């Protein structure tokens, strides 16, 4: 049996169903957490921000329009991250996480993923935050480019350009190091 859709769960949440929120959390926590980590939050801060996102989802559940739950959730996540970034002055300067804190997979992949992941993370950190965010939203969320443009307050064409340029930077990062 497939899991209930985010739209269904969010509609239940809007009616005050705390259990539905728990299910939504279980479904979405990993991509949201990964997004926040790649945006530059530490493990603890990303966990805190994730908690904040779901608390805000609950507190503002009456404002949910009834559709496009993913866009709703990611918009709240985007706003939570912006507040965090402004507080820690991350918007103007690139602040890559310490390499020791970079995500790894299984022990067998840790070397490859660790090195490449660390370099990609550094490369991401050099990008303007709105470009980084556009790339990471397209990586971690099922949102369309139009949805992403709506969250970031720009046009779809602009988003395509940002994502393309940002990905080209990441590609050059790999090619300069000679990875396949």
């Amino acid at each position, binding site marked *: 049996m497939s899991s209930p859709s985010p739209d269904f769960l969010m509609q239940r949440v809007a009616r005050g169903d*705390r259990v539905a*929120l*728990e299910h939504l*959390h279980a479904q979405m*926590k*990993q*991509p*949201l*957490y*990964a997004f926040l*980590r*790649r945006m530059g939050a530490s*493990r603890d801060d*990303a*966990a805190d921000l*994730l*908690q904040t996102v*779901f*608390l805000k989802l*609950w507190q503002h559940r009456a404002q949910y329009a009834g559709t496009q739950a993913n866009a709703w959730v990611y918009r709240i996540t985007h706003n939570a991250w912006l507040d965090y970034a402004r507080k820690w002055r991350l918007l103007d300067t690139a602040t890559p996480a310490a390499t020791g804190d970079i*995500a*790894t*997979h299984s022990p067998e992949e840790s070397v490859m*993923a660790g090195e*490449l*992941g660390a370099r*990609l993370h550094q490369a991401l950190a050099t990008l303007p935050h709105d470009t980084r965010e556009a790339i*990471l939203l*397209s*990586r*971690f969320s*099922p*949102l*369309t*480019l139009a949805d992403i443009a709506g969250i970031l307050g720009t046009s779809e064409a602009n988003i*395509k350009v940002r*994502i*393309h340029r940002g*990905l*080209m930077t*990441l*590609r050059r990062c*790999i*090619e300069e190091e000679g*990875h*396949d």
Partner: protein
Amino acid sequence: MTEQKLDNESRALWQEALGAHNKAIWEALEAEPAPAVMRVLPPQPVNRWQWATAASLVLCSALSLVVWKQARTLREQNLDYALLQLQSPRTATQLDALLTLRTLGHDIPQHRWTVLRKTLAETQDPNVQLATLELLIDIGAITRLSDLPQLPATMAPQQRLLEVSFQSWQQTPATSAAPQEQ
């Protein structure tokens, strides 16, 4: 790797920009698993209606206790007064007292039965005798038919009624039986 339903446009964009490096970069961007949480939301605070309900229940319980205690005190006062009235030389007063004691019924504790027995032994009035006997049967102070004293011959029908009353009391279920006199 996180199962990701990528939008078709995004997929095309990634493939166009990254080419052969698409998969490697995609996978390398994954983060460690999100930490588990005990609960997503803080515990639900008790709302004002629940507080009001709880406060009402406490208040009602307190009031019920006060009312019950007052009622018990009143019954005890009535019992004391009725037993005092029973010692009056006036027959009418005694009969009033016996009527009150009938309404109190099983609230009359065993150690107060001696007052009733004394009244029965001392009274010359057959109506007082009869009323006292009825009360004693009612509260279970007379447990044997042989304990029923003989009324004057002129009260033979009342005597018969007493015996019937006693026998019907004997046939009632054990839960309603009065405690045995020591």
